[in-house]
């Protein structure tokens, strides 16, 4: 790796465009150009210095802005593709075959392709994660490669530059001044008044302001990296929980994702607006749709396992009662439990009575708790009903045996053994909803009287320890954006030329108009030579015409 030696004697690293010391153009391209590219102050990007080992090659790959932009485009394109059809998470089927069938049925050939290419679970796919990882890598490496050389060259910059540097600035002027020294002094005074930092050296003035705005992009990148880091932390157990649970009124169960905690639902409440209370606001809507929900609420009790208790133990301590309503979650130990969903009127218990078929005389009523049925129900006048079979979700008979397809009492069925003083050996009957089967004609019958129902609450359990990291990343990102957008790094060079001439040059990273306005007032005050903006074609042509 060879150094580039400038005419002024300074040795610059390989890849330097403008001499670090005097500002002379070093490359052929820069020498021939009329206006030099001031990005990174013409300093060498670190990665340009050498290309030897594999590590350097990888580093150089990620350091390239072209590669960075390509990665961003790839991320944008694939993210967009992922929104075309619903992701796996939102599809109500589970197995791969069902998924394929689902996409095929709804979206035809494109749907099949979508599934085959793995877009159905894109944001969790390994290649999408690799892409995001490459983006992060590119941001870090490209920033590191640029920010240090830029910092160094801005810190080291000389006040006095070589005329060839001045000449290649976008804003440049040259001319005789009657009193060059006085002009310099006055320029300095005016620039200070406009809050420039002014440095002087051997008949040269460098005025600079808002250099910090140059760090905007790097601050912004730091914010992005912190954000990505926060997302990464979500993969560590304990940092991020997003789970759901269904809980019935009266049920006590462990909270998924929150070990050692138990929740009991005391009640689910759904309230509607009444015409009287909401006539003013919702009157018309109420007339149109009938009813509007005012409140979804689950009243719960939170329990915690005792310090030395084992999982499964019923030895737990009460923590608190709480009413979870929408957007008002139950909070404990970093967890939030939100009201998300509900199901109304699941069967809870059934009230039955035993009657004599002929007379319709009743032996009294009994209630079967569908969660915890009892084996024997004692009735009046010496009659008992034995529950010898219970099928919570009756789904027909298989191999001569009634079967239940789930433990949920969606369609309860019972086999009763009815014992009365008349028939002490008992009569058996199978009772399901709207159906009674007897092996032989019975004298007695268990009849359905009424049912009690309960509601089920759908709750979401959330915990996100990364939230503050994401917030911090977001804030830093915004600071970087503001820093780089609302301030501009402006520099004005004024120096004495060879034969009593004055040279003026100026540079900014954006908002040239304001720079020129400021320079104009300095020029008028200090009597500096006329200057031109060589990228502003209108003025250029005007001036050319004027000069002719």
């Amino acid at each position, binding site marked *: 790796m060879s150094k580039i030696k400038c005419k002024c004697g300074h040795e610059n690293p390989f890849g330097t465009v403008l001499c670090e010391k005097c500002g002379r153009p070093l490359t052929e391209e820069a020498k021939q150009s009329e206006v030099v590219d001031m990005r990174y102050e013409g300093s060498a990007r670190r990665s340009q210095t050498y290309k030897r080992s594999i590590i350097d090659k*990888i580093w150089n790959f990620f350091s390239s802005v072209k590669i960075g932009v390509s990665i961003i485009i790839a991320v944008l394109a694939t993210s967009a593709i992922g929104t075309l059809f619903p992701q796996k998470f939102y599809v109500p089927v589970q197995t791969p075959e069902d998924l394929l069938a689902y996409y095929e049925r709804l979206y035809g050939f494109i749907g099949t392709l979508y599934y085959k290419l793995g877009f159905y679970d894109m944001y969790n796919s390994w290649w999408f*994660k690799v892409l995001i990882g490459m983006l*992060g890598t590119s941001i870090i490496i490209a920033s590191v490669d640029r920010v240090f050389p830029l910092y160094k060259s801005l810190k080291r910059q000389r006040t006095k530059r070589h005329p060839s540097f001045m000449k290649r600035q976008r804003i440049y002027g040259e001319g005789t001044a009657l009193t060059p020294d006085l002009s310099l002094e006055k320029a300095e005074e005016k620039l200070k008044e406009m809050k420039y930092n002014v440095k002087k050296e051997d008949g040269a003035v460098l005025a600079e302001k808002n250099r910090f705005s140059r760090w905007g992009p790097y601050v912004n990148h730091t914010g992005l990296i912190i954000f990505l880091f926060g997302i990464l932390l979500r993969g560590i157990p*304990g940092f991020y929980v*997003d789970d759901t649970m269904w809980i019935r009124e009266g049920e006590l169960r462990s909270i998924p994702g929150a070990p050692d905690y138990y929740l009991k639902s005391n009640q689910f409440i759904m309230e509607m607006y009444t015409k009287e209370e909401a006539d003013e606001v919702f009157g018309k809507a109420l007339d149109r749709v009938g009813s509007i929900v005012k409140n979804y609420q689950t009243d719960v009790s939170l329990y915690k396992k005792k310090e030395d208790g*084992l999982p*499964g133990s019923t030895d737990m301590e009460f923590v608190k009662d709480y009413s979870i309503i929408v957007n008002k979650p139950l909070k404990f130990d970093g967890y939030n439990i939100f009201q998300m969903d509900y199901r109304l009127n699941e069967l809870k218990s059934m009230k039955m009575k035993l009657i004599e078929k002929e007379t319709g005389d009743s032996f009294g009523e009994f209630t079967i708790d569908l969660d915890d049925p009892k084996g024997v129900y004692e009735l009046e006048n010496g009659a008992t009903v034995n529950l010898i079979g219970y099928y919570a*979700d009756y789904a027909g008979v298989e191999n001569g045996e009634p079967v239940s397809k789930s433990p949920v009492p969606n369609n309860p069925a019972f086999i009763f053994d009815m014992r009365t003083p008349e028939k002490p050996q008992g009569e058996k009957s199978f009772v399901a909803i709207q159906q009674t089967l007897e092996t032989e004609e019975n004298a007695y019958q268990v009849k359905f009287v009424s049912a009690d129902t309960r509601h089920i609450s759908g709750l979401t359990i959330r915990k996100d320890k990364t939230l503050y990291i994401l917030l911090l990343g977001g804030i830093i990102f915004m600071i970087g954006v503001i820093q780089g957008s609302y301030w501009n790094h402006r520099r004005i060079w004024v120096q004495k030329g060879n034969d009593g001439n004055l040279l003026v040059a100026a540079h900014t990273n954006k908002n040239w108009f304001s720079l020129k306005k400021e320079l104009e007032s300095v020029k008028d005050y200090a009597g500096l030579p006329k200057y031109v903006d060589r990228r502003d074609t209108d003025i250029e042509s005007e001036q050319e015409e004027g000069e002719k």
Partner: protein
Amino acid sequence: MAKPDKKRSRLIFRGVVLLLLASAILFSIFSKDKVKVLEVGDKAPDFELVDTEGNVHRLSDFKGQGVFLNFWGTWCPPCKKEMPYIEDQYKAFSKKGVHVMSVNIAESKLKVDSFREQYGLTFPVVIDKTRDVRDLYNVVPLPTTFLIDKDGKIVKIIKQEMSEEEIISLMESVLPQ
């Protein structure tokens, strides 16, 4: 002479940064679960549940023995199918030091009792009323079976129905010798 040193330290710096970034990417790909999921080789967490007769059973009671930990429901057809095999092998293996821990998920005592009676089960059946142990062991499909050796380590996790031969070989795998 400072130059080669500088070059080398730069190379090390770059290597370390790239390595860190690469491992971050790999981590994000392989960290699928947001909660700790039990795996083969992990220590089986202890728990305590009550059986249908009111006796408390703890997993740690069987320290030094193999444990066949089976999660099931009365409504689940494959659970019913494998239950007689488990019963037979329980009889064969319990004297040799392999214990059956049968965990029903939150069903009623009546239902579990009549099931036990119907299948003639002689091993104790505990009921996980709060689904606490199910969550602890991340059990999703039923039946799910864990084989735990005499040191309390999980040797195998089976998330489907088992044949009698499989049950025999599984129980043999946790014989405490």
